[in-house]
């Protein structure tokens, strides 16, 4: 239910867009300032604290032996979760994740998984019986819009910064071999770029105020080759084909700088 204040804010945003301006002064294809710090949770195998504008995420990666999924006995496991903490925004209530947060976690998960970022075939301890599992958990501590990209960068950075322990199978059980950590088997660096459409305008990385006004949104993830490896359209309106093609171009171009930044977090 839009309040009068919300309506005024929306009008301000739309009027500015007509003049070619965004409410925080950014160019349409310009994401907010991104800062990435890794190793922030020493007890995790990998971790990152990401700020994208005023959106802030802390992500920890735990690595431990697990059983493979049925029919995928020659692949390791990757599982990604997200929680928007109630301290991140006044509207968040504690409790099990709603559909928004479930979508968030699944979109971040797919961006990593479908890009083939991690070579899962290198995470097998004993085929069909024991594999290495990588669990990436995102804790959203400040919510100022576009959690998709912020969580995606935090997850990617946390994975890149990982030290993977070594296990050997003894008596059919994995046993930790101390002091033999290695970098994870990385094949590419996926970069998620989320765009919102307000009228005819496509805005990269909408902040919370813009997010409340968008007609539709799309998250396009590209890999290191510039190819598209995951897409999620959302929001209560659609895109024309022309807009979709334009979004793909914007996404590939915006991803380049961000990928460079992510590369530097490699352990």
């Amino acid at each position, binding site marked *: *239910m*839009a309040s009068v204040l919300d309506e005024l804010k929306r009008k301000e945003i739309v009027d500015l867009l007509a003049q070619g301006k965004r409410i925080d002064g950014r160019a349409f294809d310009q994401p907010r300032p991104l800062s990435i710090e890794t190793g922030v949770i020493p007890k995790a195998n990998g971790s990152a604290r990401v700020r994208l504008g005023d959106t802030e995420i802390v992500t920890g990666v735990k690595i431990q032996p697990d059983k493979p999924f049925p029919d995928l006995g020659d692949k390791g496991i990757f599982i990604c979760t997200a929680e928007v903490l109630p301290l991140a925004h006044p509207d968040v209530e504690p409790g099990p994740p709603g*559909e*928004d947060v*479930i*979508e968030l*976690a*699944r979109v971040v998960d*797919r961006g990593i*998984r*479908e*890009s*083939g970022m991690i070579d899962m075939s290198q995470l097998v301890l004993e085929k069909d019986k024991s594999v290495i599992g990588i669990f990436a958990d995102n804790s959203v501590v400040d919510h100022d819009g576009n959690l998709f990209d912020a969580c995606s960068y935090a997850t990617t950075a946390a994975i890149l910064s990982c030290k993977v322990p070594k296990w050997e199978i003894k008596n059919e059980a994995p046993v930790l071999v101390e002091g033999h950590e290695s970098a994870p088997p990385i094949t590419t660096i996926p970069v998620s770029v989320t765009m919102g459409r307000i009228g005819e305008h496509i805005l990269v990385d909408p902040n919370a105020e813009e997010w409340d006004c968008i007609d539709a949104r*799309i998250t396009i993830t590209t*890999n290191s080759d*510039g*190819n*598209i*490896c*995951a*897409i*999620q*359209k*959302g*929001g*209560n*309106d*659609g*895109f*024309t*084909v022309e807009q*979709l*093609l334009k979004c*793909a*171009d914007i996404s*590939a171009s915006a991803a380049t700088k961000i990928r460079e930044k992510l590369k530097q977090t490699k352990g």
Partner: protein
Amino acid sequence: MGGRESTLVLLDKNGIRCDGRKVTEPRRIMIKAGVLKNADGSAYIEFGDNKIIAGVFGPRDVHPKHMSNTDTGIIRCRYHMSPFSVTERKNPAPSRREIEISKVIKEALQPSLMLEKFPRTVVDVFIEVLQADGGSRCAAIDAASVALADAGIPMRDMVCACAAGKVADTIILDVNNEEDQAGQADMPVAYMPNLNKVTLLQLDGVLTHNEYKKCIETAIDGCKLVYQIQRKALTDKFFENGGNQ
């Protein structure tokens, strides 16, 4: 996706797919409108081996009340799979996958509905997958849109949905289960043919920018085929009822 291996020949040298189809040929699609007594609108679809039923209630009062909106009607959507719908018996509780698909289907249908005419109300769309095959979310949207029309909800356009994808480095229409498992990319698309808008777009797998363009165009061609079948389902029901009354 992204490099899964398979001994299956997904595309033979004559351009024929593993289930005998040509590259731009959809699976068999059958839609029947008005299949339920109690629902305000309903439809049943068979799309390949998908068997899906959609039922619509509304516009009606919202419970709990705090969810209602004084400015407009709202839409809720539940996509659910029966325990027997897949090879391994599925737990009846909704999975995270079903919750996400419910959300993207809701957002795919919403642009077609004139909900602003019915403030404080809700349109409930319930989708049950009795048997699942590749492309179940597209088939679900196709049935749900017919059920919404069957319920008489004022609509701007139909929403028709079909996937495209990539197997053996070729863009194909309407990815089946084996192609989804062993292929290179799957892109479900929902489309409003008269308003010319894409309302659902997802992608699993890797595409170049050219392939991306071709995939969208191929999927939209499929959507237009579906549209004719949706129209026929509604016409058939209209005349069937006319004939009976």
